[in-house]
């Protein structure tokens, strides 16, 4: 096979791919638009999917919540934790402390009250990832707030050290403060309970909890006397949860499990993921069809050009190489532009529409390399295949006939 010269081998297809005719504009424009939308949908689907997977795989499914109860009168203290630790069905026990607090907010100039709960390692709330990726476990001087409390946005507090009143009445006028740094926010709509709880480390939560009992002088004394607010008891596997519930109830403890709630929430996320997946498949089909059609129209209208190339000395195979390269260059260009646009839109969405994102039940929407890669591949594939199908006929046509028809 003759080696083609530099001028024709790369230059011709590159120039053709770059210089836009009206049909090429349509092809590139439609592919760009559809590709960008498909990438956005896939990104949202992927975010919904990972939220759903996270919930389904979370330790919550094998956990039992033991609540302090006036009726049971059994304090959830260290002695009880030691006893329960001997149960072969129990993997781990997490003590939880809950106390009341008011936030002294300058802007807006209102006080809001919220609970302060120790973080639950089994059920990490969906954190808005643009703030901080790995917040847990929190240090003693940090707090993660709900994105809003009583309709007041907490966002302006990010990164600042905020004073918290040590009583449950809330508001800015409370007595001495504990100062905590706001390090993140979570999507409270995903919280199973305690929708207006600031999440802090266990020792910090105990400070707040112990103030509710004026008789105690230290957190240790508080635990010994009143006990923790609740214990999260993690079974070794999901199947043991019913048995564990029975055993703990038999001891007179007030117990509930998370399974029903978590499964329900995860089901919603799974439905969202499926719908987004279907939308993306539809989008991919439309993208493929549009590329196929536009690429086909584009190339079939160039039969005289193909014939001319053959008349001036190109073989059929060489023309095919040229057109293939042109299609690949064009496809890559469009796919790169779509990817860049989709990433930009996703980042904009993350920054400006996170309220909506939270309503969709997603902790965040970030550019997803997998989604971008999938749509990238579909776009290039559709443009190249569409073009190849369209150039078969002009290539097979005798140049003498093609040139005569002109």
């Amino acid at each position, binding site marked *: 096979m003759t080696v083609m010269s530099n001028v024709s081998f790369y230059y011709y297809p590159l120039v053709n791919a770059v210089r836009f005719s009206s049909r090429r504009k349509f092809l590139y424009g439609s592919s760009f638009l559809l590709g960008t939308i498909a990438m956005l949908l896939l990104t949202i689907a992927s975010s919904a999917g990972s939220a759903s997977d996270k919930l389904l795989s979370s330790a919550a499914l094998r956990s039992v919540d033991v609540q302090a109860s006036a009726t049971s009168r059994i304090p959830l203290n260290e002695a009880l934790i030691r006893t329960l630790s001997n149960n072969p069905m129990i993997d781990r026990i997490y003590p939880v402390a809950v106390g009341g607090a008011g936030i002294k907010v300058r802007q807006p100039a209102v006080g809001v009250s919220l609970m302060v709960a120790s973080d639950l390692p089994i059920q990490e709330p969906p954190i808005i990832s643009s703030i901080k990726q790995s917040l847990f476990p929190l240090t003693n001087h940090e707090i993660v707030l709900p994105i809003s409390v009583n309709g007041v946005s907490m966002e302006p507090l990010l990164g600042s050290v905020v004073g918290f009143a040590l009583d449950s009445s809330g508001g800015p006028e409370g007595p001495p403060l504990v100062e905590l740094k706001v390090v993140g926010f979570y999507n409270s709509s995903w919280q199973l309970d305690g929708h207006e709880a600031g999440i802090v480390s266990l020792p910090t939560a105990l400070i707040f909890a112990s103030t509710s009992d004026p008789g105690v002088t230290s957190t240790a004394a508080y635990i010994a006397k009143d006990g923790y607010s609740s214990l999260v008891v993690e079974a070794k596997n999901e199947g043991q949860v019913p048995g564990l519930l029975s055993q703990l109830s038999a001891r007179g403890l007030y117990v509930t499990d998370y399974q029903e709630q978590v499964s329900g929430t995860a089901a919603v996320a799974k439905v969202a993921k499926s719908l987004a997946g279907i939308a993306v498949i539809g989008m991919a089909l439309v993208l493929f069809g549009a590329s196929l059609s536009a690429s086909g129209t584009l190339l079939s209208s160039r039969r005289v050009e193909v014939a001319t190339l053959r008349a*001036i*000395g190109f073989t059929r195979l060489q023309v095919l190489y040229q057109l293939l390269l042109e299609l690949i260059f064009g496809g890559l260009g469009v796919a790169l532009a779509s990817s860049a646009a989709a990433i930009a839109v996703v980042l904009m969405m993350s920054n400006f529409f996170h309220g909506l994102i939270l309503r969709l039940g997603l902790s965040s929407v970030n550019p997803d390399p997998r989604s971008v890669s999938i749509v990238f591949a579909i776009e290039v594939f559709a443009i190249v295949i569409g073009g190849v199908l369209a150039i078969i006929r002009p290539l097979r046509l005798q140049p003498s006939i093609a040139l005569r028809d002109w």
Partner: protein
Amino acid sequence: MTLIEVHEASFSYTGSQGRSDLILDTVNFELHACEFVAIIGESGSGKSTFLDLLGLLSCPDSGDVTIFSQATKNLGEADRARLRRRSIGFVFQSFNLINQFSAIENVAVGSWDSRGNANEKARNLLRRFDLDEALFEKRPMQMSVGQRQRVAIARALINDPKIILCDEPTGNLDATNTSLVLEILHKLKMEEKGIVAVTHDNEIALAADRTLRLIDHKLRPLERDK
């Protein structure tokens, strides 16, 4: 020096219903260096088909076309393309320039030289045909028809072929541009090239060294040459 020799070549088109239409019947022809041959004939007489045979774009059903003493009947597509590229330049009535390319690119695209050389050769050819430098980067739609035809002729010459085949080279040109193209063809003939022009244009027919008429599927010398 004989550049092309056509020996007893016949050609028929087979229609979609299987009917065969004879276009050329045992045609003989020779083209020599420094010769300008015009071929005239009625529309549909087979002039362009004959040009396709000379340019190796079609194969005769019988007989053969010999280029530089090389028989082409049994050549494969790639070999025919290689021979065409090396030895034959085409000039079309509709110019067939690539719209998205500039004048320079249209000329250089046919080159089998390295890119830098191709561009330089293209530039020199365009200069030679009195095209303004400002037009070199313009695309065909931004040029007059005369300018387009000169670009098309430059493209035909980019690989310095010995044979130039022209299909109605002045068919879309006014009198001034027709004279200009004739002048160019005459100069090319002086450079030891052989030129075949299929035409309806009397001016070209009169300017040619020989004029042949395609009639009744045969090539016959025009009366004036007898």
